[in-house]
């Protein structure tokens, strides 16, 4: 008899209204991609070229070796693509905004190589905070960047000069 009563009560329950905004109901903030750039918004931060993490080179030769700004942009985008497809580190990229990353990484490379861009992204510590990146992940990313630079025909010594700017940042990226 008790079961019967309970079932009756159950049937009396109101079905929640169609189209309930569950995210709002549970306090989940939905980020909207920017309709123009396709990027997700990030928390406010102080914008500065210092966020790029190193002092740029000043060498027209080096910029030329990288195929100018277009070459650099292709290398940055390709590095992200290769990493998204790399089973070793894909999981780390899956949960992040790689649309933005392609742009900001390209800006960072462009700035560091002295190709005349400003870096508008966050500093390395903030961008990788809590990501759990290991040295093995770092090596995987370096290999993908090397592959991207090879595809673009960047001479090896020039490749190493970019890596020379990035390698010291590992302390801010890799979780101890």
């Amino acid at each position, binding site marked *: 008899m008790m079961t019967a009563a309970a*079932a*009756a009560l159950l049937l009396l329950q109101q079905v929640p209204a169609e189209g309930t905004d569950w995210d709002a109901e549970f306090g989940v903030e939905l980020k909207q991609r920017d309709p123009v750039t396709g990027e997700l918004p990030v928390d406010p931060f102080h914008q500065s070229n210092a966020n790029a993490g190193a002092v740029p080179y000043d060498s027209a030769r080096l910029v030329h070796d990288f195929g100018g700004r277009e070459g650099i942009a292709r290398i940055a985008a390709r590095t992200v693509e290769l990493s998204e497809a790399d089973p070793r580190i894909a*999981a780390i990229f899956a949960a992040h905004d790689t649309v933005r990353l392609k742009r900001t990484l390209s800006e960072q490379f462009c700035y560091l190589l002295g190709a005349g861009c400003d870096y508008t992204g966050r500093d390395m510590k903030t961008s990788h905070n809590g990501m*759990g990146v290991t040295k093995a992940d*770092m*090596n995987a990313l370096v290999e993908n960047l090397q592959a991207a630079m090879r595809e673009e025909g960047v001479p090896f010594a020039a490749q190493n*000069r970019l*890596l020379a700017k990035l*390698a010291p940042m590992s302390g801010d990226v890799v*979780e101890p």
Partner: protein
Amino acid sequence: MTMHCSCLLVLSQMALGLTEVPSSPPSAPPPSIAYAPVLDADGDAYAQPMIAALPLTHSTEATRRALQSVTATNAFSEDGGGLRLGKVRLLKGGKLLLTNGVTTVEGSSGGGIARWATIAGRQMPGGIGLSNHATAIELPDFGWRSFGVAVGFGDRLELSYSHADFNTRDAGALLGIGQDYTFNLDTYGAKLRVAGDVVYGDPWMPQIAIGIEHKRSGDGALVRALGAAEVNGTDYTLSATKLLLAQSLLINGTLRYTKSNALGLLGFGSADDGYKLQFEGTLGYQLSRRAVVGAEYRTKPDNLDLGASPAWMDIFAAYALTDHLTVTAAYVDLGSIATFSNQRGGFLSAQVAF
């Protein structure tokens, strides 16, 4: 049971305001379970759970690794190869090419004749790696063959063993120790990285390692007759190694506190000479991810007063044919050995590392 259910149906219909309780006609199938019509009402919608099961995405790699089951049902891991022993990765690799160095004549990760601060094997922190090598040196009057194995624990510790045969060929007869007399040497090495990283971090902060090499000559009576004080001996080393990316240069320096005579082939020390501080260095230029060329220099004592030259030198080229196989070819100048001068020749070494 049937009673219960029909009564439930009745109750619910009453609650919904269907006051007219129909006396179920005999033709109609007896209602079996009350909620069946509700479930059926929307067919497919209920075939799927209301909320699609979200795959558990652990926010960070670290969390994912921490949550990994300790005992793998299958030792062959699914992600990235290698074996697994609990949480320890065996032979999984992960190092950048050539950053495990090649193998020295004493079986340590390094250049051909100079020890480096690098750790043998391709493992990353938390992993265990393995490195094997075979080396041959052909000189005008002597021949060297060595082989060995090294185990690397993370980026921290290297344990190595190497065995060397040094064939005196015709020189043996001339020296009165017999044609083709072959000296034997076993080297047990240990190396501990104490600071720094060969690639990452501050460009002026090298990877620094301390180590020992315990050597045991297999020719006790003979090396004593030649004047050596001991048959076994231990070298102590302090190494610093860095890849200067901006210049594509690999720089290495090692201080060795040793009493070895010709690496220990001719025993250790003498009546009036013991430990001395020696230096060995490497300068390499990285041509590509896979290729490096360079030169090495290593000073050594002449405890036995055999007129041995004060230093060995070589120029080398190392090439990583695959992620695992590295070959090294060098031109070595070992100066004067046991009164035979101008010992210059070829060095060839193969290393297989995981």
